[in-house]
């Protein structure tokens, strides 16, 4: 028998025995779909853990690497016939990998970067202001201002230039709707999600708290996110969020949909845009926010929304979640390409989503596949369709 400390410490030691080997998880696993080898699928990996516990296998480098060949996309968890929270299990298994010093180099880099720089890309707090270029007027008085609503961008949106437009769109929407909102600016740090992906479960609460203490000081009641993983991390790992339910965490589409229902947003006719919505794994399977983006698209005149198959809770992962994009970029890209192929069988010319990782993955896969389609965040679609402020918009209209 081999003792797996972390698995026991986090109460996961029964899970390999609960597994009924039905294979539901393997059938939906994006990594297994590409590699077609049982030991890369969830069922296979769970059995390897079981054999390690029983002293028949070894927790070596090869298996440690396989633990990281996973998107943490929650699909296996959502279909597990015995109700195992497989994604939590993989996170704990990653902690075990870290404890044994077998962490893949990219994961080590992410941990170091989050710890020393407060972001995932070894940049720095000053770089979190770069996205504001061109909209200085809209944001200049917003940073660390006391307000009921806060916009939390997350590392990807604030630091990656191709996603700056997502943040700008969100700010423009809020301004249009007359929302009194605040930004954390250079005080914003990583939400902590990459820590769980890289096997450091201990420090997530501290990371979340750095942001949350600021948010509380500003009197915020609602936090709007551009990245669903940030919400999931705070909901699962932040002690204060679990205890204090007074702060509401919303995805961009949940917030925008609310603005539309409150008649704060008005749209102008679009020139026949056919869109399809890619449900990000976390917002669909964990946050269950599948209807809001669709309701938003239904509200925009001239936007025709078609469904992809699979969609909603059965959505296929973009391949970029859970650090797979840095641990095995080629595999990650192949998974994204598969998802883009789902789009090609629809009449849609535009794929809309609400996760920065999905956008980055699809942008890359567009190049590798040569597919002609526009990839947008829901905020970009909404912002582009707003009618000029003189004609409508704002609370007063």
């Amino acid at each position, binding site marked *: 028998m081999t003792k797996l400390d972390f698995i026991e410490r986090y109460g996961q030691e*029964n*899970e390999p*025995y*609960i597994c*009924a*080997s*039905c*294979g*539901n998880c393997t*059938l939906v696993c994006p990594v297994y779909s590409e590699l077609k080898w*049982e030991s890369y699928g969830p*069922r*296979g990996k769970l*059995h390897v853990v079981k*054999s390690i516990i029983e002293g028949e296998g070894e927790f070596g480098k090869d298996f440690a690497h396989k633990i990281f060949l996973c998107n943490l996309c929650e699909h296996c968890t959502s*279909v597990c*016939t*015995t*109700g195992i929270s497989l994604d939590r299990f993989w996170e704990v298994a990653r902690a075990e990998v870290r404890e044994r010093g077998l962490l893949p180099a990219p994961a080590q880099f992410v941990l170091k970067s989050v710890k020393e720089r407060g972001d995932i890309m070894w940049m720095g707090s000053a770089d979190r202001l770069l996205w504001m270029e061109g909209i200085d007027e809209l944001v200049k008085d917003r940073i660390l201002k006391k307000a009921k609503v806060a916009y939390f961008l997350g590392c990807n949106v604030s630091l990656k230039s191709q996603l700056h437009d997502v943040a700008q769109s969100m700010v423009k929407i809020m301004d249009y709707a007359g929302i009194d909102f605040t930004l954390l600016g250079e005080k914003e740090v990583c939400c902590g999600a990459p820590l769980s992906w890289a096997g450091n479960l201990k420090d997530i609460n501290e990371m979340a708290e750095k942001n949350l203490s600021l948010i509380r000081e500003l009197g915020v009641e609602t936090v709007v996110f551009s990245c669903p993983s940030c919400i999931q991390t705070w909901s699962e790992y932040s002690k204060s969020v679990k205890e204090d339910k007074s702060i509401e965490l919303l995805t961009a589409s949940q917030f925008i949909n609310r603005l539309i229902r409150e008649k704060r947003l008005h749209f102008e006719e679009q020139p026949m845009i056919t869109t399809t919505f890619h449900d990000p794994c976390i917002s669909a399977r964990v946050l269950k926010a599948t209807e809001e983006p669709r309701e938003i698209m239904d509200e925009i005149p001239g936007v025709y929304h078609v469904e992809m198959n699979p969609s909603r809770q059965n959505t296929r992962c973009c391949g970029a979640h859970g650090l797979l994009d840095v641990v095995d970029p080629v595999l990650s890209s192949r998974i994204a390409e598969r998802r883009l192929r789902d789009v090609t069988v629809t009449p849609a010319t535009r794929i809309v989503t609400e996760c920065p990782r999905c956008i980055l993955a699809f942008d890359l896969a567009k190049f590798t596949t040569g597919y002609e389609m526009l990839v947008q965040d829901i905020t970009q679609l909404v912002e582009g369709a707003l009618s000029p402020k003189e004609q409508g918009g704002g609370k007063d209209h």
Partner: protein
Amino acid sequence: MIYSKDVTSLPDLAHQIVSPRFDVVTQPVDVLSLQNLIIYAIENGIPIVPRGNGTSGWGGAIPTRGGLCISLSAMSGILYFNEFESAVTVETGITWRDLLAFLERLGFTLPVYPSSATAATVGGFVASGGLGIGSTRNGDILKQVIGIEAILPNGKIVRLGRLLLDSKTDPLREKVEEGNSWLSEKLSDAGLGSPEQETKLFTGTYGTLGIITKVTLKTIPNLQLIPFSCSFDRMTDLVRAADRILSEVKPYYMRFLADNYTSKLRALSEYENESGKYILTGALLDTIYQNEDNIEIIKTVTNEEKGYVLDDKRSWFYWSERLYPLRIKRHGPSLVPAEMLAPMNMLPEILEKTKAELRNSKVAIEGTLSNDGTTSFMVWILDDERKKVSFTIGWYRSFQIASLAERFGGLPYAVGLWNGRHARKFYGNDSYKNLKVMKKKLDPSNIMNPLKVFGGRVTIGRESMLLGFLLGFIVTMIGGWLLPGLLNLDWLNQFLSLSLVQFLYFPNLWLLGLAGGLIAVMIIRFMRLSQALAIGIPILRILSKLLRR
């Protein structure tokens, strides 16, 4: 290892009679590559076990003599659908979930599919048979099979019943003609009908006569689906209500959950009308008008039988849970399967008896109601395989439930590996005789899913061999030492008093013991599954009783 087990875990002791793993796992992608694989296996005498996704618990897809596991999950195409013929033809590796998704997009659904539909393959369920979602109106899965294509253990491809395909794009036509004419001869030799009439040779027989590669299934229009659920304080009330609902409404699906099942479902803990109660749940699949009338009947019947009708939200919850009965496994974490087919009116009595017999075990009971007055009575015996001794002894309870079924005029739910000794009763005397005749004709070297359904010689493990040898050795030694005195024969006493025999007394006794040990090993080597179980089950029963004390 994953391919060498099904949803249950076997105790280590079981591996003394069946091999713990396959030698090779293969995944053919088409019929011709599968045919080549079978021919290779015949030529080399390698056992073959066809496998879907292993979602059953009866051992039909596990290895018994090592050999080849043929996983059919890569053969998963939908080949033909015709709404006017209400039929769909698929490759057997497709999951029921994918087939349902395909049909539902076209406004159709299946008359019956398994509760493990999310992962179970069409081939797996058709090859093992059984009740599922829809059985309350449409009976078991075997009644839904219109035609099948199978590869026989000699590599010939045959089609039985009415397999619907686009004849213009059928690359196997010539091979099938050859295979069918060969099979016709064998069938007529055995006094059976034509291939069109004998689909039952391959359905419900666990691939022991051939591997099913294509199936044509019935489809039905996907009319309005309305789930319903009601809770009862007593099983007798539930059964009375179920009986009336069955005769007055004919629901598409109806299932019961016993009190020991609902008390273990974490999702029910907040619902005092459900947790620890007896739940009757199911769904109507009919026109809007018919459903409106029927749902009123269900409400009336439930109230009259002292039940409580649950709201729509709860009914939809139970409808979505129909595909996740294994959630109960968390209370184990391991599972010992025990299921029977019992007459519905006997349910309360069987339930009480089962509870009494398994009073020291953690159990959860549920079942599906069929349209012929029978019910599947599933006893989830929850155990922990890490506690090696109690888990091994606890397996006796599975056989205990099979015996209980017999006492109440029921049957084990499935044959598979472990219930082979009930096969004659399960299939019916004549049908079983025909199956045996055909098994000899089609698979004379018994390489196709050996030991399943028909039993056969088991592969005894080294530990059992050693134990057998020691037993034989000791028994013969003691016999050789005591017997002459007990028999008190003059000639034997004279012979034993010879000085040479006296001198070599102990070496001779030793040699006698050795011979006894070897004879015991030979007996064990030729032991059949039924004999091994006949010895093993009483031992487990005794140990179980001792342990309970």
